[in-house]
């Protein structure tokens, strides 16, 4: 792998990380802690929305984030020819 390729690969990885970790922060610390009282004014069935994010929603989003990252990185590894399928 050439030097510019290496840089490009790593930059792209860092971009994925910053986007995904922003979402990670917003659903847990944002919706579940900092904005919980504001969101609680909205209701979905028996759940207040902030309470739901704190006790259920954030966990579901965490799972989705990891599998999205797995997909993105598997594609990126292939594009740069550094995947492990050889």
């Amino acid at each position: 792998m050439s030097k510019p390729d290496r840089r490009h690969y790593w930059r792209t990885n860092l971009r994925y990380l910053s986007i995904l970790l922003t979402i990670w922060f917003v659903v847990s610390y944002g919706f579940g802690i900092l904005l919980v009282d504001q969101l609680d004014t909205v209701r979905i069935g028996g759940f207040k929305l902030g309470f739901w994010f704190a006790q259920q929603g954030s966990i579901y989003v965490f799972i989705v984030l990891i599998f999205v990252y797995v997909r993105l990185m598997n594609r990126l590894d292939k594009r740069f020819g550094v995947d492990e399928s050889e």
Partner: protein
Amino acid sequence: MNVQAWTFTLVGLSFALYIGVAIWSRARSTGEFYVAGAKVHPVLNGMATAADWMSAASFISMAGLISFMGRDGSVYLMGWTGGYVLLALLLAPYLRKFGKFTVPDFVGDRYYSRVARVVAVVCALFVSFTYVAGQMRGVGIVFSRFLNVDINHGVFIGMGIVFFYAVLGGMKGITYTQVAQYCVLIFAYLVPAIFISLLMTGVALPQLGFGSTLADGSGVYLLDKLDGLSRELGFHEYTSGQKGTLDVFFITAALMVGTAGLPHVIVRFYTVPKVAAARSSAGWALVFIALLYTTAPAVAAFARTNLLTTIEDVPYREAPGWFTNWELTGLIEYQDLNGDGRVQYRGPASDVANEVAIDPDIMVLANPEIARLPNWVVALVAAGALAAALSTAAGLLLVISTSIAHDLLKRTLKPDIDEKHELIAARVAAGVAVIVAGHFGIHPPGFVAQVVALAFGLAAASFFPVIILGIFTKRTNTYGAVAGMLTGIVFTGGYIVWFKGLYPELNTAEHWLLGISPEGIGTLGMVLNFIVAITVSRLTRPPPDAVQRMVEEIRVPRGAGEAHEIRA
């Protein structure tokens, strides 16, 4: 069959299963002993990680705590799951690419320093011993409550089982036993939860059930009913918080980062064959953990509602059987203060005096009895709690034995030791660790509960920053790493010892730094570690070229197979 006969049968069957699996998968080389030969399928590794991670505390205590804390209990739910996102995105793939066996291996090699390695080993040992003592105690408690075995004998039986498969099987034996233990524990957790959800709301999925209307035809939502009951009896509203926002923020962060820094969790990602597998394995681990962690808040709400409706203002003579049974163990205490012969269970805001004290730990164990579920379900919970405690204990014992045989002996004290003797040393270390853990289980030091906060705080404030900096910056050098780790440990440890050990009477919000409780201080310790490590590294000379090339290498997946020089 009565509850006890069912319990003996189910616990006996599950133990036979674990031993069978252990014999089938015993380790023959150090590679198999430390990291299962790095050949574990990512989904199975995810399952084993989940069992490793979910301890007696997750299984027995967590839902009970949430049930009494209400919304504030979310710190555990988010804190103990969000860490897996950090693991999957920031740690697992790179540590797997690095290869080797342990966290101190990485710290020692990346920071080309024996001091850094030894600091890391000491932290790993401290964190693991703290944890394992609690697990052995949990085993003893389950035995004594459900099987009427003396608590010490319970610990001995638990030690025997763990000794057998951890010492014989190493990581390979533990991994496959943990897969079996996960199946037992999740089945044992979900069955009563689904039963209770159906009974109370008519919805089978507990995750949906606790947001549904009650099955009694009133059309009232369960959580609204619970909020109403709580207010009426003088408790705080279940779905609102009591703790300060900043404190909740810091506790959640300390638990998340602590999870990502725990050596027995990190080491699991060395056992998969590829970097891509390490990423997806963390995802599967979280799927399996979430199955329990999204059920727990539902169980908490059901248990709380049941508790408030079944005992409040009931004549003591007519109190349900479970109430008097648990009174015998001292975990429920009732005192008829106003002498009316009835039970008054009230919160601090009520003008009627509260007459009942309930230990949160009983909520999960007593829940099936409270909801009058069949005997085999009650017995199943005991088998599940044992699976949770044993699987975590085994994972921790392995970290302890690896730290001693590999990090201390092979890498520091006696580098010329051959594979055969290193394997013997690892088995002896595991054996000794089982005995020490058993000792703590029988004679629990009074500080076990307090030091759990310390274990998470220290993991957050010591390992996490130096591993992240080791991967994402090339400039961080040995001076920065050692200074950062020491700052994090001394600050966090000092703060916790100050409030939990030396001056417990000062342990209230007005004395805390910025209103942060000792449980959350690890987050600040982590931030300090980052700042010190970066600053000191900038002021001293950069790491050697070889180390910088190593950092370049671990950022790219290809070649992970070869990096693992363990074919024995």
